[in-house]
């Protein structure tokens, strides 16, 4: 509910109309208004509609593109218009269910503020003044620039930001980068899901977030995970949670949520353990400690498939302490003290977990997106190993990939090879971020300092850093330094409208061919096809097609690296693999029949998961589950030597205690908060509400009018405060308050609630757009203004979204 009730403004025209209306006039006019049918509005013309018979209706299967989950959907198309989206029962991920994001698809397709043709900036950056240009001109423009760079042997001065974590579009960009020759491809995995994927990478040798066997598990410990509001698998988790809840109490699986707030996840859990921000890892280690202390951990698994649990010697015969020893310090008492929870709860939960195996623990952004993120993720992962839940029924699974055929190998020419050898701009894999694969948030610093080299061209695919990355102001400054920026955004988002020199609008996901590799969830392999459900509304172009055309336009040697007619063709070349594998839900003798069925049902999946296939799931140097990550140890030592330092020095340079062994094992470090506790006493916890799909969604009224949390205020950004916190600052519910950090300040509405711990300010992402269309603009505040970009302390370049301290004060209106 609101307090402001301003009346519509009345200008002279209104007044005149009003007067003309008064009395009899009013009556007559009302009569005329009844003239055109109020019960059926006439729809605007859309391309291809005339090919449909009146009232003709088709259901087209495709894959949702609103978030990485890749749910299968069926779209109801009437007279060439997409009317409604429903879940596709054939899809193993959502089984006919569908979430609010997926349902809002039509509002993406028919957003009134979509970009309708390629745009070139006229006039200065900052103000959104563009001129439309033809696709051919645009292609020429880009290809010439890129060719020019290559000829100057400066391919590395082009960078690509691809907001995808997986899928063929990412691979296509990687292919492009490799063939063209630039090391600077930054993918989406470097963002929220980074730490979990890293933990998997260092301990299991698979850089991907794990899947979980919800159907068979009996106990789940969620460490600040937002599975029911912020995750990339909302529908699947909701379904899984539902399936867990069936059956009488006792036989039902339990969920325990340890976190700083009563989130939706906590709301639906059986128990909420309120731990202090950033101490989730300690809690996990406490549980592990109890399990080990009482000998309740899966000794068989540790013995057969574990590495570095007990002390061990490396080739040089140097003795290394094991994880077991490291665990000793995390006694329940100490952990309880760190987390601010009753001692008994730790032992209780630990025993419960052991009693109710199979069980697993999973951590979420609130626990991981801080300086200590990766080790925290490793701690949780280690806990799962101790419970013997790795690749076992009811435990953690490694998402199997569909048996796609490979594209022909790319042979980079020497120009490319030379460029690829260059140091990455974001410092990933270098002394700056030795453990990172790519660090999006490191770009601003690199661009501003111009080291190691100045960037010439930047390609933004599914990336809107000026809104969705920490410290947009800094990004703005940094991107000013880049002479040529291309955005593929279908909407005029902040980045596109403010800094992009060229906008090549992508089709909406309901208009293009694409694959949909579901984010890890079901475990077993699945492959979804995203296909056009309606004819493209405007002269937009699928970015996949554009990349291929670009490669061809640049010419030698990229041409032969891209032997595809278009992206659909490229995808088909991969799908052949599934066809020839002759397994899973679709098996056909003839390739065309296979394709027909694939496109018909929109999904292929092979719903058998081979448990305990260790060679698949443990790809570490030791071939075992590494409590002590040798690959990490190796990586750091090598990078250190390469930069002529000892590992200890390298660590010191990052402000870490110099013990390399310690770093390579799971553990709990205190969060190195941004901002001193004196002037910024409160911890900022931000989260993605489930009305926040890929690319925002603030332009989808259906999502925005769904309140981000269990409150009612819409079209505003609220900060959730504990009554004590509020009282201390003399703030009451509904007040406008200013939240300030060392980086910036925003104005939000206070929401007093016992559902957060004292000393915390919890704010959802997604508000405060300055562009992005009529529905998104002009309400709420962007919490990213409070968060700083990545500092040096982190080895993996984790975006520290939950590592900021803030202060609040009431805004005197």
């Amino acid at each position, binding site marked *: *509910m609101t307090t402001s*009730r301003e009346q*519509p403004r009345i200008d002279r025209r*209104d007044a005149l109309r*009003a007067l003309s*209306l*008064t009395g009899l006039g*009013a009556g007559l*006019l009302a009569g005329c208004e009844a003239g055109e049918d109020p019960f059926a509005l006439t729809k605007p013309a859309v391309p291809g509609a005339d090919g449909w018979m009146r009232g003709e209706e088709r259901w087209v299967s495709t894959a949702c593109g609103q978030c990485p989950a890749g749910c299968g959907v069926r779209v109801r198309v009437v007279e060439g218009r997409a009317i409604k989206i429903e879940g596709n029962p054939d899809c193993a991920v959502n089984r006919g269910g569908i979430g609010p994001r997926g349902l809002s698809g039509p509002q993406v397709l028919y957003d009134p503020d979509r970009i309708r043709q390629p745009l070139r900036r006229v006039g200065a950056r900052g103000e959104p003044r563009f001129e439309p240009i033809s696709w051919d001109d645009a292609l020429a423009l880009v290809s010439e620039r890129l060719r020019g760079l290559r000829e100057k042997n400066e391919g590395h001065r082009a960078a690509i930001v691809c907001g995808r974590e997986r899928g063929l579009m990412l691979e296509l960009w990687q292919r492009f980068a490799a063939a063209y020759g630039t090391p600077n491809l930054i993918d989406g995995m470097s963002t929220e899901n980074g730490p979990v994927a890293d933990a998997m990478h260092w301990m299991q040798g698979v850089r991907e977030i794990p899947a979980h066997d919800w159907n068979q598990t009996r106990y789940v410990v969620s460490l600040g995970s937002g599975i029911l509001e912020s995750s990339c698998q909302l529908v699947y988790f909701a379904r899984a949670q539902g399936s867990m809840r069936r059956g009488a109490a006792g036989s039902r699986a339990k969920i325990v949520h340890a976190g700083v707030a009563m989130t939706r996840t906590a709301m639906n859990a059986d128990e909420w353990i309120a731990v202090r921000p950033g101490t989730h890892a300690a809690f996990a280690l406490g549980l592990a400690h109890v399990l080990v202390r009482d000998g309740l951990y899966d000794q068989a698994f540790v013995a057969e498939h574990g590495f570095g649990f007990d002390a061990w010697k490396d080739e040089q015969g140097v003795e290394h302490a094991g994880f077991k020893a490291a665990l000793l310090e995390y006694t329940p008492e100490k952990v309880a003290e760190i987390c601010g929870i009753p001692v008994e709860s730790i032992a209780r939960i630990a025993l419960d977990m052991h009693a109710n195996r199979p069980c697993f623990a999973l951590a979420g952004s609130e626990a991981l997106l801080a300086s200590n993120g990766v080790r925290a993720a490793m701690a949780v992962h280690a806990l799962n190993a101790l419970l013997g839940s790795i690749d076992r029924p009811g435990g953690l699974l490694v998402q199997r990939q569909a048996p796609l055929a490979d594209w022909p190998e790319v042979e980079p020419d020497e120009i490319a090879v030379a460029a690829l050898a260059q140091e990455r701009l974001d410092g990933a894999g270098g002394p700056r971020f030795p453990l990172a694969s790519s660090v999006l948030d490191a770009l601003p610093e690199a661009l501003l300092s111009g080291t190691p080299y100045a960037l010439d061209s930047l390609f933004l695919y599914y990336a809107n850093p000026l809104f969705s990355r920490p410290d947009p102001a800094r990004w703005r400054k940094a991107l000013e330094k880049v002479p040529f920026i291309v955005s593929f955004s279908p909407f005029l988002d902040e980045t596109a409208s403010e800094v992009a020199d060229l906008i090549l609008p992508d089709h909406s996901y309901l208009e293009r061919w694409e694959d949909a590799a579901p984010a890890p969830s079901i475990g077993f392999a699945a492959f979804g096809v995203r296909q056009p459900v309606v004819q493209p509304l405007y002269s937009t172009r699928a970015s996949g097609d554009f990349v291929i055309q670009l490669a061809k336009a640049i010419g030698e040697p990229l041409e032969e690296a891209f032997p595809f007619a278009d992206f659909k063709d490229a995808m088909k070349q991969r799908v052949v693999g599934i066809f020839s594998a002759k397994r899973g839900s679709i098996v056909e003798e003839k390739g065309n029949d296979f394709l027909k069925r694939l496109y018909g049902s929109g999904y292929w999946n092979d719903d058998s998961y081979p448990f305990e296939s260790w060679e698949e799931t443990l790809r570490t140097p030791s071939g075992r589950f590494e409590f002590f990550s040798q690959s990490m140890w190796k990586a750091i030592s090598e990078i250190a030597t390469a930069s002529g330092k000892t590992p200890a020095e390298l660590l010191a340079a990052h402000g870490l205690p110099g013990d390399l062994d310690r770093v390579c094992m799971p553990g709990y470090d205190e969060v190195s908060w941004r901002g001193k506790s004196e002037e910024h006493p409160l911890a900022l916890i931000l989260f993605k509400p489930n009305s926040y799909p890929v690319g925002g969604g603030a332009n989808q009224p259906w999502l925005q009018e769904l309140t981000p949390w269990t409150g*009612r205020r819409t079209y505003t950004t609220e900060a959730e405060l504990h009554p004590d916190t509020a009282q201390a600052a003399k703030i009451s519910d509904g007040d406008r308050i200013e939240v300030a950090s060392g980086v910036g300040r925003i104005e939000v509405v206070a929401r007093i609630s016992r559902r957060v711990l004292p000393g915390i300010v919890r704010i959802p992402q997604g508000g405060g757009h300055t562009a992005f269309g009529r529905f998104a603009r002009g309400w709420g505040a962007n919490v990213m203004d409070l968060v700083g970009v990545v500092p040096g302390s982190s080895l993996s370049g984790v975006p520290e979204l939950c590592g900021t301290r803030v202060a609040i004060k009431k805004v005197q209106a």
Partner: protein
Amino acid sequence: MGSLLEVDGRRGSSELRWWSLAVFLAGLVALGMFGYAQQLMHGDLVSGLRTIGQGGAAWGLYIVFDITFVGLAFGGLVFMTVVRLFHLRALRPLSRMAQIMALISLGMAGLCVIADLGRPLQGLLNFPKYARPMSPFFGTFSLVTCTGCVATFIYLWLDSRADAATQAARGGFLRPLHLLMAAGWRNTPAEAWRHKQTSYLLALALLPFMLIGASTLGFVFGIQAARPGWFGTLQAPGFVVLALISSMGVLTLIAAAARRKPSLAAAIRPEIFGWLGNMMWILTAVYLYIVAIEELTASYAASAVETRVADSLISGAYAVPFWTAMACFVVPAVLLFLQFLRRRVSVATTVICALLLNAAAIVKRLLIVVPSQTEGLLLPYPKGHYLPSWVELAVIGGLIALGVLACLVFARLFPIVPLITLADERSVPHADERPKQRASRLFLTGATLCAGLALAVTGFLLSARFGTERWQDPLVPFSPILFISGMVLIFGSALVYELLPDAGKRAPDPVNR
């Protein structure tokens, strides 16, 4: 310019006063129309009303003033009927004011409802089509505003024939109108006798009829089980008493205004104000008693929400207006009571008390309508709040101005105080022995009456969907109209009885003499 002239020496200044006042009121009306036009264009969004449960109230000022005006009408009618039935000669000078007040405020009430509707045009079309008696609105709308208007008008007309005749005799540019009103009044004993009869019976019929009308408004709220604070048996009586209070108040004001004219000052004696004052304090006492009972019951009630609403009034969000209203009830009541004890009437005091009481009554009605919507939510929706927007205020202001203007104009065109009382009824011949009646007169009257009754009953039953599916159109289209016209006929029979000309020897026409 009939009645003003001959008595008033300081014509010029009074003229000026009159016109300036009229212009001012007209301006208010125009503003109201402008506001309403806003509402027509932008929808009810321009009002302060919003969805219940999403922080708003769905009913507000419009409904409040609908209640107020219906109340005034009811009170006016009660006054005039009581005066007539019990031959309260002393109060007779006010009877016409009361009638006018009733007539005009009935119109205002209708307009209030229209203003509240989301689709006024549809309302005018669909109500006569589909109206159903099961909804209390049927009562307020068809009974009160339509039938009440007609009945009151008939009474007013018949009652003012004699004066009209005298006016017509005086000539002036309004002569045709006066002649029309006089409807051939010849001042014969028979006519006088007949008029006594009709006015008597009419009064008798109107009283309970309007009682029902006023009570249905109470039902509108009383039957809402889902709205704590409304649900209860005391609503109807409460509404009735409150209505009487405010109408006595307004009557006092009108009388006081009329009294400012020297020619009338004599007729409207202070005792009249004494009587009004007494009525007011008695009624107020009764009303306070009712309120006390309601609040007491609510605050003991088991239902948490019931108590929440009560508390919001007594100590919560609405405490300030509530207690102000209470004060505005108590203080005047006490003052008037003292006046009663001291047996000395001060017109000024009475007027001030009347003003206070009316303000209190309106606020109280607002406090009946709103809190049950904003606080009385049975599901844990967030509380709502309601502030009238300028549009609502403008529309209501316009309506009130319209009412006053109508009063002024009438007072200007026609004696607001029956001339007969000015002349102490000397001109009315005493007709003690009953004159001979024409059989046809009685027959025709009876016929109309019966026809009316028949129409009304059938119309009622038809619009109640007897014998058809509840959702279907009534068997006979526009059956609500049948009902209304039936009621009109019932009262119209009075016209037949009185206006049917006598056969035989014509008495000399006093007008065209």
